[in-house]
C-alpha cells in the first residue's frame, strides 16, 4: 500500500508560482480561478467567460456567444452580454512569505517605535543608552550639584558634548567625532591615545594636567581611566602602560614629536613584563657610586672579628642603625648620636674616657678643645672630685705630655686617621669606649679651611636611590635584609648596596605570584600633580 502522496494535479496552462504573493482563496479546494488575485491581494475573478458579440452581416443588434475555454456553457450569456456563470469572489490568501514580510515589518516598526519612545524622552534615553553605571565619584548628588545644568541625576552633558542635545546633536557629534567615523587609517594606526573632547571635561575638575614625563605626548584620561564600568572606577592596568612602553612604533613617534624637547626619549626601552624585559636598574648598569664622603665599612661593622659587643651585649646588626621611618616605607637616616656614638664615643684623652668631643660641627670641636681646662673643671665638678682645680691642671699637663701643644692636639683631633696624619691615633679602645678614635678624618673628609678652622665635609645620605619607583620596606619586613642588601661584602662607602633587578624579579613575577604590575613601583602621574 502506498504511503506516497498523490501526484498533485498540475494545471497544464500554468506554472506553480511561488513568486506570487497571493494565492486564490479557492486554491485550497483545488479549484483556483484562472484569473488569480492581483498583486495587492484583491480577487479579480468575474465570470467564467467574457461573451463575444457576434454581428452577422445585415444584423444590427448582434448576438452574444459564450467563449468559455472549456467549451460553451449550456445556458449561454445573459442578454446584457455578461456571463451567466459568475465566479464566487474569494478572499485571496497571503503566502507564508507575505506573512514573513509582515513579521519583518512588525519587528522593524516595533524597533523604530521602541527606539523613538526611549530616545525621545531625555531621562529615559540617557538611562537606556548609557553603556554602564558611572563610578561613584562621577555620579550622585554631589557631582550633579557640580554640574547643575539639569534636574536629573544622569548628567551626561558633564562629560559628553552631545549629552543632552537630542538626536540631531548626537548625529552631529558622531559626524564630527575625532577620529572620524570612517577614518580607518587612524583607527588602525599605532598612535598614542590623544586627548579627546571628553578630556576637556575632566580638566574642569582635575585642573593642571601635568601628565607623565614632560617629553611624552599628552594622553587621554579616559584611555586609562575607563568610566561606565560600575560604581568603582576600574584600576588602571599594565596594558595602559604597555600600550606605549611596549610599542616601539609609538615610542618612536613620541620621540619624533618631542625630538626637540628632549633627547632622552631614545633611551626608553620597550617593556612588557617586569621580569622579562624591564631593564636592569640604572645604578647597576651605570655603576653608580655613593658620593658620600663618610668612610664606612659595612663588612667590618657586620662581620669584623674585632667588633666589640654593644652595651647590652648584643652583636651589632643592620637594625641597630637602620630603623624604619614612621610610614615604614623608608629607613630613617643614620644619626651619629643615636647610632654611632655608642661605640664611637669620641674620647680623645686616654686617661679621661668620660670626656668626649662634641659632634656635628668643627666650630664646636674647636671651641671645646680651646676650653679644655674648663671642660676638665666641669667634669671634676660633675664627678665631685675633691680637688677640681688640681684635677684639671693634672689632666692638662697629661695632655701636654701626650700632644705637646693645644694646637698639636687640635691638629690631631681633626686630621689624624688610624694610619696617617699627625699621629697614628689619639684615643684608646680601652675603658668604656668600644671604638677607638683616631681623629675626625678617620670617618670624615676633613680639609684645612680658611683661617684656623678645618672644614669637615658634611656626610650625605641618599633618602632613596631609585627615585622613579615606589618602594616600601614595610611590605618586605618578612625578608632578611641580606636577601637584598649585600652589606657584608661591602667595604666601601661608595658601594650602592641595593639589589639588582633580578633580585626583585625573583619574587615579583607572575609565577612567584608577587605583584609585578607597573603600578606596583611606578606612578603614572608625577606626584605633585596626582589627582586632587
Amino acid at each position, binding site marked *: 500500500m502506498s504511503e506516497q502522496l498523490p501526484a498533485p494535479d*498540475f494545471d497544464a*496552462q500554468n*506554472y506553480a508560482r511561488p*513568486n506570487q504573493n497571493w494565492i486564490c482563496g479557492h486554491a485550497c479546494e483545488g479549484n483556483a480561478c*484562472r*484569473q488569480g488575485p492581483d498583486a495587492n491581494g484583491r480577487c479579480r475573478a*468575474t465570470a467564467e467567460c*467574457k461573451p*463575444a458579440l457576434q454581428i452577422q452581416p445585415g444584423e444590427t443588434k448582434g448576438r452574444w456567444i459564450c*467563449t468559455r475555454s472549456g467549451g460553451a456553457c449550456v445556458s449561454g450569456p445573459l442578454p446584457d452580454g455578461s456571463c451567466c456563470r459568475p465566479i464566487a469572489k474569494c478572499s485571496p490568501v497571503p503566502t507564508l512569505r507575505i506573512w514573513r514580510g509582515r513579521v519583518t515589518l512588525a519587528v522593524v516598526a516595533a524597533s523604530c517605535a521602541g527606539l523613538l519612545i526611549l530616545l525621545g524622552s531625555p531621562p529615559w534615553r540617557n538611562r537606556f543608552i548609557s553603556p554602564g553605571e558611572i563610578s561613584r565619584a562621577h555620579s550622585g548628588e554631589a557631582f550633579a550639584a557640580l554640574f547643575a545644568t539639569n534636574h536629573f541625576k544622569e548628567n551626561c552633558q558633564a562629560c559628553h558634548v552631545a549629552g543632552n542635545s537630542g538626536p540631531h546633536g548626537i548625529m552631529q557629534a558622531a559626524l564630527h567625532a575625532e577620529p572620524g567615523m570612517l577614518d580607518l587609517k587612524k583607527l588602525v594606526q599605532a598612535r598614542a591615545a590623544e586627548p579627546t573632547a571628553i578630556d576637556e571635561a575632566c580638566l574642569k575638575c582635575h585642573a593642571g594636567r601635568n601628565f607623565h614625563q614632560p617629553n611624552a605626548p599628552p594622553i587621554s584620561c579616559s584611555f586609562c581611566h575607563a568610566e561606565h564600568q560600575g560604581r568603582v572606577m576600574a584600576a588602571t592596568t599594565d596594558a595602559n602602560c604597555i600600550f606605549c612602553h611596549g610599542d616601539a612604533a609609538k615610542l618612536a613617534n613620541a620621540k619624533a614629536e618631542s625630538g626637540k624637547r628632549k633627547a632622552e626619549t631614545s633611551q626608553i626601552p620597550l617593556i612588557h613584563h617586569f621580569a622579562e624585559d624591564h631593564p636592569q636598574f640604572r645604578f647597576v648598569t651605570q655603576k653608580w657610586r655613593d658620593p658620600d664622603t663618610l668612610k664606612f665599612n659595612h663588612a667590618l661593622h657586620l662581620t669584623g672579628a674585632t667588633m666589640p659587643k654593644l652595651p647590652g651585649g648584643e652583636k651589632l646588626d643592620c637594625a641597630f642603625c637602620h630603623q624604619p621611618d614612621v610610614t615604614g616605607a623608608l629607613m630613617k637616616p643614620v644619626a651619629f648620636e643615636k647610632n654611632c656614638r655608642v661605640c664611637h664615643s669620641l674620647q680623645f684623652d686616654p686617661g679621661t674616657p668620660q670626656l668626649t668631643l662634641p659632634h656635628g660641627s668643627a666650630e664646636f670641636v674647636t671651641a671645646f678643645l680651646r676650653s679644655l681646662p674648663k671642660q676638665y673643671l666641669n667634669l671634676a665638678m660633675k664627678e665631685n672630685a675633691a680637688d677640681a682645680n688640681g684635677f684639671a691642671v693634672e689632666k692638662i699637663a697629661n695632655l701636654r705630655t701626650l700632644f705637646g701643644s693645644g694646637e698639636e692636639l687640635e691638629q690631631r683631633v681633626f686630621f689624624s686617621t688610624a694610619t696617617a696624619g699627625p699621629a697614628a691615633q689619639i684615643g684608646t679602645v680601652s675603658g668604656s669606649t668600644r671604638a677607638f678614635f683616631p681623629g675626625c678624618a678617620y670617618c670624615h673628609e676633613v680639609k684645612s679651611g680658611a683661617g684656623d678652622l678645618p672644614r669637615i665635609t658634611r656626610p650625605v645620605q641618599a633618602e632613596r636611590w631609585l627615585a622613579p619607583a615606589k618602594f616600601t620596606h614595610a611590605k618586605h619586613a618578612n625578608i632578611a635584609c641580606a636577601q637584598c642588601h649585600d652589606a657584608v661584602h661591602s667595604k666601601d662607602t661608595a658601594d650602592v648596596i641595593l639589589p639588582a633587578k633580578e633580585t626583585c624579579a625573583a619574587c615579583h613575577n607572575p609565577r612567584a605570584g608577587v605583584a609585578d604590575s607597573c603600578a606596583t613601583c611606578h606612578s603614572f602621574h608625577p606626584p605633585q600633580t596626582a589627582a586632587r
Partner: protein
Amino acid sequence: MAAAPTILERPQRWDAAFDADMTDADVERLLATAPFSAMDAEKFPKRTPLREILRNDTRILKFRKGEIIVRQGDYGTSAFLILNGASRIVLKPDLAPSLLGRQAPGKKGIFRTLAQLWNGSRPPETFSRSQLQQAAGLGARQTQKDVRVFLQDLPRILSEHRTDTMTAGDLFGEIGALSRMPRAATIFADTDDAELLEIRWQGLRDLMKYSDALRTHVNKIYRERALASYLRATPMFQHLTKEQLDRVAEQVEFATYGDYDWSGEYKRLAQAGTVRPEKEPVIVQEGDYPNGIVLLRAGFARLSQKFGGGERTLNYIGAGHHYGLREIAHNWRHKDAPVNFKFSLRAIGYTHLLIVPTRVMEEIVLPSLPKSDLPPPLEIVKDDLDSPPHAEKGVRENVGVEVLEFLTENRFFNGTASMVIDLDRCTRCDDCVRACASTHDNNPRFLRHGPTTGSLMVANACMHCADPVCMIGCPTGAIHRESFAGQVVINPDTCIGCKACFNNCPYDAIRMVEIRDKNGEFMVDQEMKPITKATKCDLCVESYGGPSCERACPHGALTRLNLNNLDALSKWLKL
C-alpha cells in the same frame, strides 16, 4: 474593474513570413528555376500551395566571397539552395572556431537586466501589445543572418583545408534541417555574386512531401554526404585510407527504428503505464551471432540483458556511440571460439543507425586499428554486469540500477540540460522557481515537481533534448535551436499557441499560458478566446551567468545535467 479586453488577430501560420520582402517577382523567378520548375504545383494541397511555400518559407540571401553561409556545429533549421554563383564546403580539417566568428547569442542589455528588479510585481504572463507586434516584425532572434561572418585569409584556408565547390542547383543543409542534427560542415560563398535560397525546414518538409524528385534527390545526397562525413568523424575509422573508407561506405547498411514522431506514442504508452522494454524494436538480440557493428547516428538505444523473467537495462547509448565492437574483435582474434552478442540493443523512440557488416570490419577496419584501440578481450572481463559498454569507470557505483531504469523508462537520457534535484539537500525553498521567475519577467518557466527515484527528482523543466521532438510540427518555427549552444527556445512573438510542441513533449516541460495585458486581463482574439503561448525553460539564454535556477540554489541541490550519457550524472552524484 472589467477593463476592455485587448483584441488581437489570432496568429496564423505564415503571419510572419520567413522574409517579408519576398516579392511576387522573386517567387515567379523561383518557380522558373530548377528544381521548382520541375515540380507539379497541382500535387500541392490547397492550404499549402507551392507558390505560398516559396513566398513564406524561403528567402533569398546574397553573400560575398568568403562569407560563411552555414557553420559546422550550428543547429540550423533551414536548407540552402544555390541560385547563383558558387559556394565552397570545407571538408577537412575543420575550421578553427575562432575563424568561424563564434559569438554568444544576444544577451539582455544592462538596462533590461536591471529592469528585472522592479518588474517583480507584474501580473503573470504579461505582454505589451507593442512588444508582440514589434518583435514579430523584427524576428531578431530567429534571423541573425544579418550578421555575416567572413573568413579573413581565404587563400590560406584553401591551401590548408580540403574543400569542394558547389554550384547553382546544389542543395545543402537539408540533413541538419530535417534530422535535427548540427551542421556537418562549414560552407562559405566562393564568388561575390553568390545568391542562395534559404528554405526553412517547415517549407522543405512540405516541398519534399509533394515532390518525388526532390525527395529522391535529398535521400540520395543524404546518404552520400552524411555518411562520408560521419564515417570520417568516427574514431574507429580514422586509420583508414580514403580508398578503404570508400569501400566501407559502400558496404554500410542504413536502418531506422521507431517513429520519427515517437513522442506522441510514448506519451500515450506512458499515460497507460505500459512502457516496457520488451515492446521496443530490437536492433540486436542478445545471443545472436554478431553480423555487424551498430553505429548510432541519431536517437537512443537501450542496452539490456535478460534478468529473471524480464530484461534489465544496463546502459543506454546515444548518437555517436557504437555497439558490437568487442564481440566482433573477439571473434576476429579467436576464430576458434566465437561469441555471440552479450546484450540486446533496443531502439528507444526514434533511432537512426548504420551497420558495418562483420566481414568489412574483419577485412578492413580491425586490421587498421592499433592494438591499443582494440577493446579488451572478453575473457579478461570477469563480470560483464560490472562493465557495460560505454560506461566510464565509476559510473556503475554512482548510478544505481534503479536510477538507470528510471532514466530510461522516462526517456530522460534525451536531455542535455535536465533539471536534476537532490531531494536530500533540497529544502523546498523554491528559490530556484523564484529566480527563474525573476529572470523571465516574473514568470517561472518550469515546475519544481516531477518524477522521482530515491532522492533524485527530474523536474518538469525543458531538458533541451538531444532529439527535440517538440520541434516537430511547429508551423511557424517559433520553437528553434539557438545557433550557438543549441538551446531549444520558443520565440513568443511567432508562437501561435497551436499546442503542437506542448503535445509532443513527453516530459511535460512545455506549458501553454494565457497571456495578459498590463492590467492582468487576458488577451483575447476577436472571438474573445484567450491567446495562448507555449512557454518553457530557455536555459536563461539571454541572461549572464547561465541558468539562474542552478545558480540560485543555495544548497547545491539543483543542477542542469547532460543525461545523454551517465558521466555527468555519475560525477554529480559522486561529488
